[in-house]
């Protein structure tokens, strides 16, 4: 079989399907072509089922034609090319013969061992999250000090270390920093970072494959376990129970456990009491939102790490406006720096203000014709009903024309729709109004200014 069969099939199908169908259902598929078989791998069961139901026949037709082989078999299953197929495939389609269930289970467990835990190769640590790159301030001093202690003396006094605080305050950063320092000082240490959701996913897979004892052995053999966002254990009882046992086993062996959560452990509803109580055995530290000085320092550090020197007044400008959390702060900085990179403009306060205009505005104000009529009427001190009336006196006709021109500029209504909204007028009247207003703005400075003020009032 020639290489690139699936690519050629996609080329054919591109002419027949909408972009949306292609992007949602066909382009996520990865193809493995072997011999007389084209195996399509879907990222999940939902895609697999959808493709089987809606596109199977046509794909087969196209593939057989493209391969010039009417016997080509085309299959779709869940998996990725790298790991061949994930356990999910086997879960739905592996139906071991009744005679050999034990062997099937054993194979399955072996597969879990080979592949699981799924979500990471190695420790799962992000190398950019270190103590060096963590900006210290009053808001996080204690949490940082405790984390450093733990990294230097794992399994010692603070076990477990429980870090809590709102989103985007640096919980995950500190956790990775602990892991990175630990691994640097103790290259042999088995450190694993994972989000609580991944723990749940792993456990579910292990259960499906009768590999729960492997699962237990894996997690209990770690020297340090870092589990992020344990609030996602809420409502998952079986996972909580399994985690409880893992947790106890690690603590008994004096292995270090670090946990993060978005709130104080006792306040997490839907978490078992015995878990909450255990979490409090070690040290619980909070992360608070950063103060202005810390926010400035974070911005300067971030810019520096992207190779850009951020003027201090710009850092202050951003820090004063974005107060909630560090992640939002980074988002704002990213916006400003991207804009500067694109335009080649130096980063000044004025420039930052302009770059963040959209971000700072809570919403693209939805401009409606009703709103325009109301605003224009107020501005010219006439009544909305006058604008909609048949009256033609200058004092009413001019504001009406302005309102029509604004409706054309600021909404995407059709001219007939605009005419209708202004007392059922013809679309040619609207067109005339737009021309008239444009002409007046060119001749009359005060008219031009009025118009600009109105546009600004309406759209910001």
């Amino acid at each position, binding site marked *: 079989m020639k290489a690139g069969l699936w690519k050629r099939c996609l080329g054919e199908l591109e002419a027949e399907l909408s972009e949306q169908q292609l*992007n949602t259902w066909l382009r996520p598929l990865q193809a493995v072509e072997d011999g007389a078989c084209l195996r399509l791998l879907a*990222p*999940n069961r939902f895609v697999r089922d959808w493709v089987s139901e809606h596109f199977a026949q046509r794909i087969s037709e196209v593939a*057989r*034609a493209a391969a010039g082989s009417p016997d080509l078999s085309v299959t779709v299953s869940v998996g990725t090319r790298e790991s061949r197929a994930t356990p999910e*495939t*086997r879960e739905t*389609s592996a139906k071991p013969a009744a005679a050999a269930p034990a062997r099937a289970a054993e194979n399955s467990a072996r597969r879990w061992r080979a592949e699981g835990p799924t979500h990471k190769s190695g420790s799962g640590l992000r190398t950019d999250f270190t103590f060096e790159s963590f900006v210290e301030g009053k808001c996080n001093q204690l949490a940082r000090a405790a984390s450093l202690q733990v990294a230097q003396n794992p399994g010692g006094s603070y076990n477990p270390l429980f870090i809590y605080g709102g989103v985007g305050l640096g919980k995950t950063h500190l956790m990775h920093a602990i892991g990175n320092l630990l691994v640097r000082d103790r290259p042999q240490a088995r450190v694993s970072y994972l989000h609580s959701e991944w723990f749940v996913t792993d456990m579910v897979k292990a259960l499906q494959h009768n590999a729960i004892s492997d699962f237990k052995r894996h997690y209990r053999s770690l020297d340090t376990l870092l589990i992020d966002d344990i609030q996602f254990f809420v409502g998952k009882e079986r996972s909580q129970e399994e985690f409880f046992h893992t947790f106890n086993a690690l603590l008994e062996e004096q292995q270090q456990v670090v946990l993060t959560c978005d709130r104080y452990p006792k306040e997490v509803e839907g978490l078992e009491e015995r878990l909450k109580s255990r979490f409090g055995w070690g040290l619980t530290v909070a992360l608070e939102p950063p103060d202005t000085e810390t926010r400035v320092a974070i911005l300067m550090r971030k810019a520096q790490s992207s190779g850009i020197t951020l003027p201090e007044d710009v850092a202050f400008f951003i820090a004063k406006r974005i107060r909630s959390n560090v*992640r939002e702060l980074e988002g704002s900085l990213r916006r400003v720096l991207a804009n500067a990179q694109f335009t080649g403009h130096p980063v000044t306060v004025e420039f930052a203000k302009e770059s963040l205009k959209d971000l700072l505005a809570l919403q693209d104000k939805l401009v409606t014709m009703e709103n325009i009529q109301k605003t224009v009427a107020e501005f010219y001190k006439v009544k909305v009903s006058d604008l909609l009336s048949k009256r033609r006196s200058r004092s009413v006709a001019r504001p009406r024309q302005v309102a029509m021109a604004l409706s054309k500029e600021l909404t995407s209504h059709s001219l007939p729709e605009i005419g209708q909204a202004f007392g059922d007028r013809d679309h040619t009247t609207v067109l005339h109004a737009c021309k008239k207003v444009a002409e007046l703005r060119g001749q009359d400075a005060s008219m031009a200014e009025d118009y600009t003020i109105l546009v600004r009032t309406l759209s910001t």
Partner: protein
Amino acid sequence: MAERPFSPPPGPGATGGPVRREAGDPSPAVQLWLPIGLRSAPSFANFVPGANTEALHWVELLARGEGPEALYLWGGPGVGKTHLLEAACREAAGRGEPVACVPLAGPERLEPALLGGLESAALVCVDDLQAVAGGAAWEEALFHLMNALRATGGRLLLTGRAPVGALGLALPDLASRVGAALVLHLAPLSDGERAEALRVRARERGFLLPDDVVDYLLRRFPRDLPTLVGLLDRLDEGSLAARRRVTLALVRELLDGA
């Protein structure tokens, strides 16, 4: 059996080339196989940027894997969010990369399970975030997808109708991650740029759009691009069917009373 084989055995249609079904085909499959091959696919080249040149720039970089890891594009209906998203998918797919797109406001009934495993794609696009804002299962699935993408290094392109703070996301973890992406606003085109966009689309379909026709369209109909491009499709089909050039007279015949 390890895999699910496709049902149809090799049959009459199996050896022929692509069969475009005619409109009258009673086959239930007809809905899925509309003759849309005639239409031009959204690309970076046929995007008329207007005030959105910067957004275009970053989306192009993202699609090539050179720019930011995550982008959030927001703006009102018809400003080109989906166009850019589809252009990005086409660009990445054209280089043989697996891409995945989740149209949250599309006509199909989707479930959060659709997001599972998408992090294996090089580029993941999620269109119309506002459609699932406030839905706990979707938001959590999106949050996990964003975390998983950080681990795999896959890129993410999100779109929505409002800035992050006004989207109505209930899960703060998700809102904060979306907000940390490069956030770009798409502004609507002016009438002149809309006219240009229409001419570009018409050229791709192989016909010239006379100025008086452009004026007529902009005067008589809602001026958002999806509506205007929809009209263009009707003109295209109508002129092909009537074997006449697109003139104001033909346009009036086809669209008056529309």
